[in-house]
């Protein structure tokens, strides 16, 4: 049985209330941090833990914290990124809904480590009911003296607020999030300066994902070294995976880093295999922005090694034959799913969500969407396929924020691994006329793995 650090008690009734949470040892990290540790010691433990940002980019959290500027007399802020809009990702919602106090505890301990006296949780607007759960839990924490003035008599003050967004994927990007938190449109800022120097209201700010902040709790409780013992290499600790698509048991799973992908998909402990007795065709292992993998590259790498659920193993082979762990949004597609349709679906998403600041992204995502749409409807031609590859290259790296890359990568990867399916749409337009083609019978058989040199 895999060890759990974040979802240990997620089935305990009323865990969202402070009394039940306390009875399970909750808020111990705050006591330890505020009474027995200095902020520097906490940062040191987080560094030792090897914890990497769970929002998608995987940047080492301890290092990020140590970059925070500390000019005299200027407030510092900790902002929790609960925007969670990457398609395929729903772990933060699960965590906040089941165990809101874990996030609040993490926010207090982390704010203390960073010297912040006001912190915000920015949550996507659609999760309004979750924001109410958080606010209720925060009110409880204030009432019991875990928040507010002079916490535990240590002289440390912290105010914690929840801010709701209003529907915009781009607000998950940290600088767009800060703009939004300031009451503006979510247009990402040019970096540098990074938020660690000039973030919220121009003050030094750390932005961390919900899961990252929650992981600080076991790290402070048990020590960074204990945390680092779980996992493999630079992928330490546990990770929440949101599993969805055509599998038997969709849901949120906490895994130890390093579980084999094959076990994750097929064992009953996790996804329970492909639904309706079908075959797997493809998998997007880290949220919509990461490259799609064809079935033969999901459980094994191109060199024939077992693929593991770690940052390194999932990206083994680079963009040629690998993907990324990303936000842990693990989407599995069965043989009845049409890759062209799915790629169009994603590109419609990115077009819809582009903030419009940068021309390559604003225009390019729309162009890709239109070309994909016509291919999908059997009205494209062979040149369209190469046009898409060209377009993706022209967007990638040419925008202020990585949304452009996130839109380009899935298209490039889909064509790389499933070019035959795009060609099929050009060659046999009558077969793809039905708008739900593929659902009743596979559009074409899952291709056998090519013989690797």
């Amino acid at each position, binding site marked *: 049985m895999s060890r759990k650090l974040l979802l240990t008690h997620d089935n305990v009734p009323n865990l969202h209330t402070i009394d039940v949470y306390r009875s399970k040892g909750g808020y111990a990290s705050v006591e330890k941090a505020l009474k027995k540790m200095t902020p520097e010691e906490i940062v040191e433990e987080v560094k030792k833990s090897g914890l990497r940002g769970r929002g998608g980019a995987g940047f080492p959290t301890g290092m990020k914290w140590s970059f925070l500027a500390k000019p005299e007399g200027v407030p510092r802020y900790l902002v929790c990124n609960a925007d969670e809009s990457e*398609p*395929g990702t*729903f772990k933060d919602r699960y965590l906040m809904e089941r165990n809101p106090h874990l996030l609040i505890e993490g926010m207090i301990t982390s704010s203390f480590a960073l010297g912040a006296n006001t912190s915000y949780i920015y949550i996507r607007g*659609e*999760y309004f*009911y979750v924001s109410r759960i958080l606010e209720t839990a925060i009110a409880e924490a204030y009432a019991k003296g875990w928040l507010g003035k002079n916490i535990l008599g240590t002289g440390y003050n912290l105010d914690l607020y929840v801010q709701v967004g209003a529907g915009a994927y781009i607000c998950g990007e940290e600088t767009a999030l800060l703009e939004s938190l*300031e*009451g503006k*449109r979510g247009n990402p800022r040019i970096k540098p300066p990074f938020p660690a120097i000039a973030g919220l209201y121009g003050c030094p700010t750390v932005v961390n994902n919900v899961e990252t902040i929650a992981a600080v709790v076991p790290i402070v409780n048990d020590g960074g070294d204990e945390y680092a013992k779980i996992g493999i290499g630079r992928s330490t600790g546990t990770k929440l995976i949101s599993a969805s*698509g055509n599998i038997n048991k969709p849901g949120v799973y906490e895994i130890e880093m390093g579980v084999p992908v094959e076990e994750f998909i097929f064992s009953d402990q996790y996804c329970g295999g492909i639904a309706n007795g079908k075959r797997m065709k493809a998998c997007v292992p880290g949220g919509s922005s990461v490259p799609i993998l064809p079935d033969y590259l999901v459980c094994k790498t191109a060199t024939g090694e077992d693929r593991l659920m770690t940052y390194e193993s999932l990206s083994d082979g680079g963009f040629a034959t690998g993907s990324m762990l990303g936000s842990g949004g693990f989407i599995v597609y069965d043989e009845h799913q049409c890759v062209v349709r799915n790629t169009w679906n994603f590109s419609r998403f990115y077009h819809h969500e582009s903030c419009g600041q940068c021309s390559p992204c604003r225009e390019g995502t729309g162009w890709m969407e239109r070309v994909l749409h016509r291919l999908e409807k059997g009205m494209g031609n062979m040149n369209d396929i190469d046009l898409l590859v060209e377009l993706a290259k022209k967007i990638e790296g040419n925008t202020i924020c990585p949304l452009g890359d996130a839109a380009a990568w899935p298209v490039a990867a889909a064509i790389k691994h499933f070019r035959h399916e795009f060609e099929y749409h050009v060659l046999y337009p009558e077969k793809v006329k039905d708008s739900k083609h593929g659902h009743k019978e596979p559009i074409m058989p899952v291709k056998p793995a090519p013989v690797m040199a």
Partner: protein
Amino acid sequence: MSAHAHGTQHFDETKRANIKFSAEALTTIENLMKRYPEGKSKSALLPVLHVAQAESEGWLSAEVMDYVAELMGIQSIEVFEVASFYSMYNLRPIGKCQLEVCRTSSCWARGAEDVVDYISKKLNIKEGETTTDGMFTLKTVECLGSCGSAPMLQCGAEYHENLTEAKIDALIDRYRSEGTRKNYTDLNYTNSK
């Protein structure tokens, strides 16, 4: 699209003069503005607009935006800039219950299109349209973070997951008999899962 819709409306001075939010809403707005440092109360704009929308039959007219600007001590254009950027603000009237069906990949792979077709036939409206009795609007939206319980739809604060035709029938019947507007800010909802 919203900018255009906005541009075609007249600013009605009389309507503007008659806008008044409930005392409860005004207190909420006042409290929201206190959550930020001195001089940064504009930060409250997004949450304030949710309150404003709930007070104004689910949508933000030019007059309402102007009223919000006055309440917050900012320019109306600052309000419009934000209201037109985010997908949860409606700049046109909508039905009492807006059914927002997720159309993104994981939901698609599990039959989101069938959900849209079913609702569309049942209510005799297309995507983006409102029933003649003003009760329902059908909309498709991007991933709502419920991919593990696909297909799904949101209505106000409520998430309806693992949808089947029977579930859709039941929720539409319930909304019809309740007859009330569903807002994102509805307080008494917690996901029943």
